């Protein structure tokens, strides 16, 4: 008895449902370029752009803290652990602080690890805010760590970090 051959279309479609690996300089430019090169099935020549590294991340954090110790705690960094598209990732930072004249959050700084540059945003607050909370939407070029640093009026630096997995849409338009 002859073995049953899988239906041609089924075999083909199964090969496609695989996870893409993102490597190389094109990944540094963000998901968009790497993905287009992959899906276009052609080599797209793009200029190489330096991107943030864990060292660059450490450097910008040091710029903010001036070398003062960074303590983990008080800061809640709310980002979905898995996002469907890195173009608009909802992010909320909250800091546990009474926000009084004597004890309040002066600034919140958010950084990333693998975008082309390490900054996300800086926000300056005061007791006029009542709550140390900032919500926005950010871009993440790849799965990476996001770090939030809160600077208090007492000169303390508190931080939190989270790892985000960034997936991307499967069917996109070809603008090249």
């Amino acid at each position, binding site marked *: 008895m002859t073995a049953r051959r899988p239906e041609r279309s089924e075999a083909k479609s199964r090969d496609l449902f695989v996870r893409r690996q993102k490597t190389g300089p094109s990944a540094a430019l963000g998901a968009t370029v790497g993905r287009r090169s992959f899906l276009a099935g052609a080599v797209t*020549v793009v200029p190489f752009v330096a991107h943030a590294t864990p060292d660059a991340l450490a450097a910008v954090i040091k710029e903010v803290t001036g070398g003062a110790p960074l303590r983990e705690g008080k800061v809640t960094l709310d980002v979905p652990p898995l996002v469907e598209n890195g173009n608009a990732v909802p992010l909320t930072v909250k800091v546990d602080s009474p926000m009084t004249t004597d004890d309040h959050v002066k600034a919140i700084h958010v950084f990333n690890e693998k975008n082309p540059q390490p900054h996300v945003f800086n*926000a300056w607050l005061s007791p006029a805010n009542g709550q140390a*909370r*900032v*919500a926005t939407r950010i871009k993440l070029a790849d799965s990476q760590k996001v770090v939030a640093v809160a600077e208090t009026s007492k000169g303390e630096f508190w931080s939190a970090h989270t790892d985000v997995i960034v997936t991307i849409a499967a069917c996109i338009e070809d603008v090249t």
Partner: protein
Amino acid sequence: MANVLVNAPKTAKKGEVVELKALIMHVMETGYRPGTNGHIIPRNIIQDFTATWNGREIFRMKMSPAIAANPFVSFSAVASESGTIAFRWSGDEGFVAEHQVAITVT
């Protein structure tokens, strides 16, 4: 006139912490994307966002290219007195947008 959507309460009790939300239409071009000709599309982002309550700054934010297009910001403020909450965005290519809302604090 930029397309802005601000959400702020019209009234509040003195001392109440209110939520202020601001959404503005802006491309937030990162300066890292290649265009159709292969050349990098120049950066065009909003860099600074400030909010004042009767002229006193209550919030300031510096945005980077990592802020998503059509930037959305939400933050809190203590309802201190009746008056005007003013929002201002500025950035590349001389972009400036302003929006004000009135609030009554009792």
